């Protein structure tokens, strides 16, 4: 039987066991640990075949299952059983599985309420800055999570206060790219020139700074020579080689 294994589907080993119990129509109250153990192992092996990473929690539960199975296969010493009664490990597992099933089922209702609530919207707190006295010192005694929450709210409001559609284009040029551009331009230029010529295609400070760094690099590699003129301009000169 070809069957797609996907570990993401299960929220943990208990979830996987519940799935296997359902799949194999096992009775949870009279659990056949041997079948469950075999199925569980088979599933993990399939995941391994698919090169899926198996979380350690799955292996811990596998170890427990194998322990149950081996205990079941070994002949029981009845005298010992009566002597020193312990909770059947199988019962403990069944209890855990049932508990898990409960929370799994109830979490569906949580999901429902959560989606419903998402569909209801509120307005942000009205702008009351005009009424506020700025000179008051505000003492705040919250914890870092409250601060985080508050900051998130501010960011959300900031997002809301912006126009619905904005387009921001930011071009970032690296120094290396700039060097290539300048090298290409050098061929068509006079032997000596003003630094200003190089930045005539720069529209912001970043462009100028990157160009300057690129020029420094070129000087270091002795592709350019420089001279500061009396008018405080930087004059550059192509090297002969």
């Amino acid at each position: 039987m070809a069957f797609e294994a996907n570990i993401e589907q299960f929220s943990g080993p208990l979830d996987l066991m519940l799935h296997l119990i359902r799949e194999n129509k096992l009775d949870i109250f009279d659990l056949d640990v041997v079948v469950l153990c075999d199925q569980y192992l088979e599933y993990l092996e399939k995941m391994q075949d698919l090169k899926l990473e198996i979380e350690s929690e799955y292996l811990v539960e596998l170890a427990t299952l194998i322990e149950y199975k081996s205990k079941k296969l070994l002949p029981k010493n009845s005298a010992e059983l009566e002597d020193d009664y312990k909770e059947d490990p199988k019962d403990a597992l069944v209890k855990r599985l049932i508990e898990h099933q409960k929370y799994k089922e109830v979490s569906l209702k949580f999901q429902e309420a959560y989606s419903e609530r998402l569909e209801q919207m509120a307005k942000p707190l009205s702008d009351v800055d005009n009424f506020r006295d700025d000179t008051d010192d505000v003492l705040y005694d919250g914890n870092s999570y409250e601060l985080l929450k508050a900051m998130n709210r501010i960011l959300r409001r900031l997002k809301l206060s912006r126009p619905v559609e904005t387009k921001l284009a930011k071009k970032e040029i690296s120094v290396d790219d700039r060097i290539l551009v300048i090298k290409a331009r050098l061929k068509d230029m006079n032997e000596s020139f003003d630094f200003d010529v190089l930045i005539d295609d720069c529209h912001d400070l970043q462009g100028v700074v990157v160009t300057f760094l690129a020029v420094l690099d070129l000087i270091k590699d002795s592709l350019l020579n420089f001279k500061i003129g009396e008018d405080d301009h930087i004059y550059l000169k192509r090297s002969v080689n």
Partner: protein
Amino acid sequence: MEAVANKELETDIEKKDEDNQDQTPSLGKEATIEGLLYVAGEDGIKAARIAETLDITLEDTCVYLENIKKRYRDDSFGIELVDYGGTYKFLTKREIAPYVQKLLDLTRSSNLSQSALETLAIIAYKQPITRVEIEDLRGVGCDMMLRKLLARGLIQESGRSQAPGRPILYEVTDEFMDSFKLESLSDLPILPDYSTDEESESLFSE
């Protein structure tokens, strides 16, 4: 027309100033509360805070709030008053949601994972609860999950257990109550009960 309106507005403001001086707004208490709720928006207000602000008893405040709630439940309103987690706030009714999406060109995104929901459910029913107890019920490590839920403000720490190592106890927050439409913890859905054998057959039947 506009000039007239402005004039009226001015006299209104004057009147309001007078009112402020003797601290008696001419509006009814219920209407005043409605106004406060409008200003508070998504932050909402607790009944006790309203009572304090209007200098009336908590019982009276709750009666007014119930009245407003009832009034807005009517189909002629597009918003309603809720008090999830004891905080009163106005929300749009769910029926508006498809149109809001259309108007603002939105698609629904943020959702909680199955693991997050299960963890929250366990905490809500068993709180206050330690991390180890949660992990025991879920069979998986929950450290990261708890941190995520803390960061989202859905759970908070509530002191320490007396158990060895004095582990941190966790409980759900008002934000959780709001996110899951709960007025109080007694509103939590009843946990299914599988303890009796008669019901064993219904379990897993699809």
